[in-house]
């Protein structure tokens, strides 16, 4: 079976170490990658935008942007790619690994932070380490964009209220002249503290090599 693979195994082996996926999962994801890219080496935004299932997702652009965001590559780079290779694709996907029974508390904590970071980066579009009010409003607007009757106004109000909520929980004794510039990562962690991110934000990556889920482009 190894002989039929177009890619050599060792490369996968590296990826296993880097991303924590199993070999089978990587093979599956690679198949999908090729399917999306049309057998090219890289994926561009257009490739992802063509996925029909994504069309109805209200936060489609944010999701796609996240894949091209350099911050999600575990490096310290800023900015975004024009096109990503398989390795980058996997790196982004690795944010969605579920915890297993063997994961220790520390690993869980790290996983959690990673996931929160991913969300944070998704909202912090300009990469200045703060989710400003404008950014937050955009998030809410997009989130509600498929809900029909709710106007922009409402979305704004909700974002405002949410922002104030963050401000009041994190900076309880703000002076009258203080200005809450935006949600920092620490504050972001704070507000999502009670949410069990590690067990909620995950995807079950298929292990079986004959993945029946791949019948759709």
């Amino acid at each position, binding site marked *: 079976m190894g002989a039929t693979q177009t890619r050599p195994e060792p490369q996968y082996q590296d990826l296993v170490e880097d991303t924590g996926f199993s070999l089978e999962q990587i093979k599956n994801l690679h198949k*999908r990658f090729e399917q999306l890219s049309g057998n090219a080496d890289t994926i561009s935004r257009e490739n992802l935008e063509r996925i029909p299932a994504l069309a109805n997702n209200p936060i489609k652009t944010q999701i796609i942007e996240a894949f091209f965001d350099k911050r999600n590559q575990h490096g310290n780079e800023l900015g975004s790619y024009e096109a990503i290779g398989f390795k980058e694709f996997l790196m982004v996907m690795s944010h969605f690994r579920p915890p297993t029974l063997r994961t220790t508390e520390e690993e869980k904590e790290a996983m959690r932070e990673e996931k929160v970071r991913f969300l944070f980066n*998704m909202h912090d579009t300009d990469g200045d380490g703060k989710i400003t009010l404008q950014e937050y409003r955009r998030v809410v607007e997009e*989130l509600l964009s498929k809900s029909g009757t709710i*106007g922009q106004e409402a979305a704004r*109000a*909700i974002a405002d209220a949410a922002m104030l909520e963050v401000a009041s929980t994190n900076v309880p004794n703000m002076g009258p002249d203080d200005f*809450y510039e935006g949600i920092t990562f620490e504050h972001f962690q704070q507000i999502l503290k*009670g949410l069990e991110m590690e067990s909620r934000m995950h995807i079950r990556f*298929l292990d079986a090599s004959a993945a029946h889920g791949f019948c*759709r482009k």
Partner: protein
Amino acid sequence: MERFALSVEKTKTWVFCMIFLLLCCTTGKCELKEPKPTDSGIFETVKPFDSGIEEPQPFPEEEYGNLPVFTMDYARIQIPFEFTLWVLLASFSKIGFHIYQKITIWIPESCLLIAIGLIVGAIMHSVKEEPPAVLTSNVFFLYMLPPIILDSGYFMPTRPFFENIGTVLWYAVVGTLWNSIGIGLSLFAICQFELFEVQDINLQENLLFASIISAVDPVAALNVFDDVGVNEQIYIVIFGEGLFNDAVTVVLYSMFAFLADMPSISSTDVFLGVARFLVVGIGGVLFGVLFGFVAAFTSRFTSRVREIEPLFVFMFSYLAYLVAELFAISSIMAIITCAITMKYYVEENVSQRSCTTIRHVVKMLATVSETLIFFFLGVVTITTDHEWNWAYVMFTLLFAFLWRGLGILVLTQIVNPLRTIRFSLKDQFGLAYGGLRGAICFALAFTLGDNINRKNLFVTASIALILFTVFVQGISIRPIVEYIKIRRTNKDLNTINVEIHTRTMEHLICGVEDLCGQWGHYYWKDKFKKFNDRILRRILLRDNTAESSIVSLYKKLELQNAIELFDTSMGDISAVPSIVSLSDEKKEATRPKKKFKTGDILKMHDILAKNMYKIRQRTTAFTNKYSLPDDSRTREILIRRHASIRRSLRAESFREQPAQNISKSLRYYSLQPGGSLESALSLRRRSPAIPEEDLLRSSGASPRSSSRSLIPMTRLNTITEQTSPKEPPAAAAHPLAMENRSSLRGRKAPVATPRRHSSNRADEDEVFSENQAGAEEQHPPPQGWVPENRDPGLNEAGNPLLRQSSQRSWRT
């Protein structure tokens, strides 16, 4: 003391007197365990029965001889009379041990009920009184079981349930089969030993008995899990298992009861049994869904008959139950699925009040049923003829415990690889240890047919098992769960941020799943949601605009805030009804919450009232079987939140452009309405020099200050009315100011009054709706709003709150 009373009254042979005495006795007994205050309380409540005895007096019966001065026809009222007394007795004991809260924390209520039942049973036994023949098979299955099941089905936390449906069904179906067959076979093996003198019990009877005792009833475990906030997965698995294995057990029970009569069993019988099992289960689900949709559809048209609105829920679910019973398919499955199906739609269709009524009545019926069953359990334990066989009973206990643990262990190993969040060993222990036996088990055992030759032994063994699990496991589960630190979850997060991010994550996961071409349950959730929005909601709901949960949570929080604002500040306003304050308030008119037009109010309240349910459904996902889900926690959060806002609210600290040139005092000022209005007013009076337009600008600049206290309501306004300009022109508000303010004063008291009660957690649900009703009252045209939605007649006549408020507004 009660002994004395007993001997005096002993000469009277009327049964009801006996029971009345028992009532005194039990309450007397339970006082021993409770603090002093109980004494007077209970005796006072008991007293009216003195006159109750004499009651037949005014209705002399016609006789042929002399006209009798005093006759009695006890036989005529016996059954309902005794039933009422039993319910009362059980309820009194419930009141009793809720007076002293600490008891119920450490000892599950079921234990206490059984204990009281035991005491009553002992008294009855000592006076040679027969236990009431109330609990027959028919009574149990037709009247006592449906409310209990309806309650569980209706308050089933839907989201976690469907996320874990596979595991739940796996444990419920396979686990119960495993337990029944495992225990049955092991007991049969025990029966082969001559030593134990139980050789006459054959395989079928052993299986029948095993199926009875494999029904877990995790009420006590659930209460504990709920209290300590154990993680959602375990909770829902235990909840669902307890619910669905009732269904499985009853099916198995009827199957084995049938088989127990048969002389021999062939292999085709086994095959037919399996087929029947499937037919019964799936048929039940289909019937349930059918009746659920019919009920939902019906509730679309009940807006004119609010009085009987809640009735449909009960009638349709009961109908589902009865029809399923008629065709001998699983009536439990039918009523569960019926409740789950209809709940979502019905609660959106009916009015807030009907919704509250439905919830209360569902809870009440279930509690009464369950209380009675546990109570009877205690009584029957003493009064019935037992056949005690050490070996059989002990082995029953052992095997029940063993097979439960083993079952969980093995089944989890199988199901774990298929789950994303796997059960750790601790979780598995929690699952296994939470497997208490309870009401269903007892009722099934007690209603065993007389053709079973060792029936008494079975009853004895079941009771022993129930007592053991309820007392030993039920009491020890809390310390154990706390000690081994089962993964907890924080379930009372109710902030907008959390809601936003939960939704973001859902979409994100769904999107990434699409990206990698896999479909998880989010995929199906997405698909169902679309189907639901496009088709089901259109058919079943009167008003079918889909709402995002974020928006509804937001609205809820805002409404809450508004209510609190009225609470805190309105008193001050009416306390200073001077011209000065009036003109001051004109300026205050920029306060967005006053800018309602009647039409908007109609719409807004319609939306609010409905979304209230949705959110409550979500947040009170975990329900306590013995009490109504309350939003006390939510409220607490809101109150805290509001308090913290009041403390820290600085509109200017939170704004779009940092460079806003508003003087500090003005800033403070614009905020003040959010805080104490009194100080704002006095402040305003002191500084009349502030240019009005500035004032308007600062307080009317909603997007900037946007706090939850003020602007919110504007926002709501804009939600219902899309055309409204971005920054609502302050001037537009003025004309309405006077009118609104007068109504404002009118509403002061009605809102404030229920709030005071709100410290009473138990009645939170009620209070909440009252609050809402109070909030509804705010608006000037009392008859105007939502004529099709709210029943004006009911409004005026039914609700004391309303009467109050109308008086008050009339007064002002």
